[in-house]
């Protein structure tokens, strides 16, 4: 069984990211991943699962999620209904225990990758409620007086968008990695992986426009890697010539299909205003 992660053919991992993943896998600690939206946090777990050949269990957190839901839920309403109908199932409480994602991960025959996605969306107490389970990799089902023990310590990847500060006690138990926005060289490799046939010059021009756009001050949502990939896909589908990207007077032309890069109405306005001002200055 492989235990070293070095990126995959569809995912470029930087040196520090590889170190973070390998440390987390080998020392059996959860890995907390933060970073700008669109830098591939969620994808990381999928790629780890793929690279190390493990099953992936996906637990998506919403603002209403409770830690208990990850362990198990007791479906009292179903039992109540069955009791009214006189169903025989009602005598065994185990019939009404619904397994959660964490239980699934503990039960897996092969060491799984468990992705706890966007943990910051949940209530502030959510990470604290999982401390013991993540530490000891076991929990107790009170209804059936049963202790659930992990067969293998799952590889846990937790993502956060920084919308909430996570409690210290929780952070202590995790390894932490911040996915930095890729620099030009890394970005070229990333695009290369996704669009192997892309012409070198088109790519260079597109990247130039892209990184220029990220420098525009005051943007509410800076375009990220996923936006760039979408944009290049569009450019290729529309067969936009390279010349369209490379205008003689830079900063005065709106790049084609910019809607794929800027997702916010105000940003588009701001951008168009800037272009307009640049044109006026240039005259």
């Amino acid at each position, binding site marked *: 069984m492989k235990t070293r992660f070095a990126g995959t053919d569809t995912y470029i991992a930087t*040196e*520090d990211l590889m*170190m*973070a993943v*390998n*440390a*987390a896998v*080998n*020392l059996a*600690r959860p890995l*907390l991943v*933060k970073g700008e939206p669109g830098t591939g946090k969620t994808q990381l777990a999928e790629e780890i699962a793929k690279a190390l050949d493990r099953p992936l269990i996906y637990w998506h957190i919403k603002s209403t999620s409770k830690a208990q839901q990850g362990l198990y839920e007791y479906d*009292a*309403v179903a039992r*109540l209904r069955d*009791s*009214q109908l006189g169903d025989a199932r009602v005598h065994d409480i185990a019939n009404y225990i619904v397994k959660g994602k964490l239980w699934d991960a503990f039960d897996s025959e092969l060491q799984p990758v468990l992705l706890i996605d966007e943990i910051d969306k949940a209530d502030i107490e959510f990470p604290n409620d999982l401390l013991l389970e993540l530490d000891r990799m076991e929990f107790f089902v009170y209804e059936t007086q049963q202790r659930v023990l992990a067969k293998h310590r799952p590889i846990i990847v937790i993502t956060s968008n*920084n*919308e*909430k500060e996570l409690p*210290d006690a929780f*952070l*202590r*138990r*995790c*390894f*932490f*990695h*911040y996915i*930095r926005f890729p620099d030009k060289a890394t970005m070229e490799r990333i695009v290369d992986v996704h669009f192997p046939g892309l012409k070198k010059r088109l790519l260079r021009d597109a990247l130039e426009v892209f990184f220029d756009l990220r420098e525009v001050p005051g943007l509410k949502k800076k375009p990220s890697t996923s936006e760039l990939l979408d944009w290049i896909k569009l450019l290729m589908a529309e067969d936009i010539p390279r010349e369209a990207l490379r205008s003689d007077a830079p900063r005065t032309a709106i790049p084609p299909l910019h809607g794929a890069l800027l997702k916010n109405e105000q940003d588009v306005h701001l951008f168009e205003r800037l272009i307009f001002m640049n044109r006026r200055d240039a005259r």
Partner: protein
Amino acid sequence: MLVEFCQKLRNARIPVSVTEYLAMLEGLQHHIAGCSAEEFYYLCRVTLVKDEKYFDRFDKVFSAHFEGLDEWFEQLFGDIPEEWLAKQAELLLSDEEQRKIKTLGGWEALMKTLRDRLQQQADRHQGGSKWIGTAGTSPYGAYGFNPEGVRIGQDRSRNRRAVKVWDRREYRNLDDNVSLGTRNLKLALRPLRRFARQGALEELDLDDTIRATARNAGLLDIKMVPERHNAVKVLLFLDVGGSMDIHVRTCAELFSAARSEFKHLEYFYFHNFLYDFVWKDNRRRSIEQITLMEINNNNGRDNKLILVGDASIIPYEITIR
């Protein structure tokens, strides 16, 4: 050495605890960081630091504490084994060429010169001059083996990057620079809310229903509770104009956050100070005025008051009039 490092991190107010220190040692024990300074740096960062806002401080402490770490690693792992060099040369050089080397003072002398050169290069490389480039005039160039080629196995990363990773300070922007976005403001406003159950029966109270049903010997007894909603009433007073102009964006964010967070929110604008009147529409502030008396009478004691202002007057407003 490492305990001291942790102590320094703590002095820089990076919260490092024993747990994290032990985790790092465990990582070293498992040989996760192999034999380069960079790997060691990444391992330290991934285990010891838990927030990107500390990355910059960590970089600084690391750089100060482990000054010369690269050289140290080089001493440990970077000694070029002589046999290896010899082998490399044998691979690359023909017999005739090797004979030529002998005329230059023999293998021993050549190796010595080569090592001196490498040493020199390592020192001078930091100054930024390209010693390798001028190597064409050296005897090594003539025999077609490139000293750089020999070196590459040892520290490629150093040649490629003049500046070490931790000295690049890429995370400067993230240090305590978390701006107040709408979302953060919402979170900050949240503790102000008071939930209360008021109004009609709406929600099924599952816990109570189960309890009541059980008490009822299994016959279904449904219990309802009123839905919880935020019962706090808020009056928001915003200072506008003059010295507040620079805070417009923050105020707008606060306003939109407060709007979505409170059910009963009334907002008013004022300028510099709450005089006897306020207004709701900035464009018609001279026409539609609301006196403070009116606000006082219309809103009961259960209202909460939030005043937003910067407690200053821009000088020209005083001097010009």
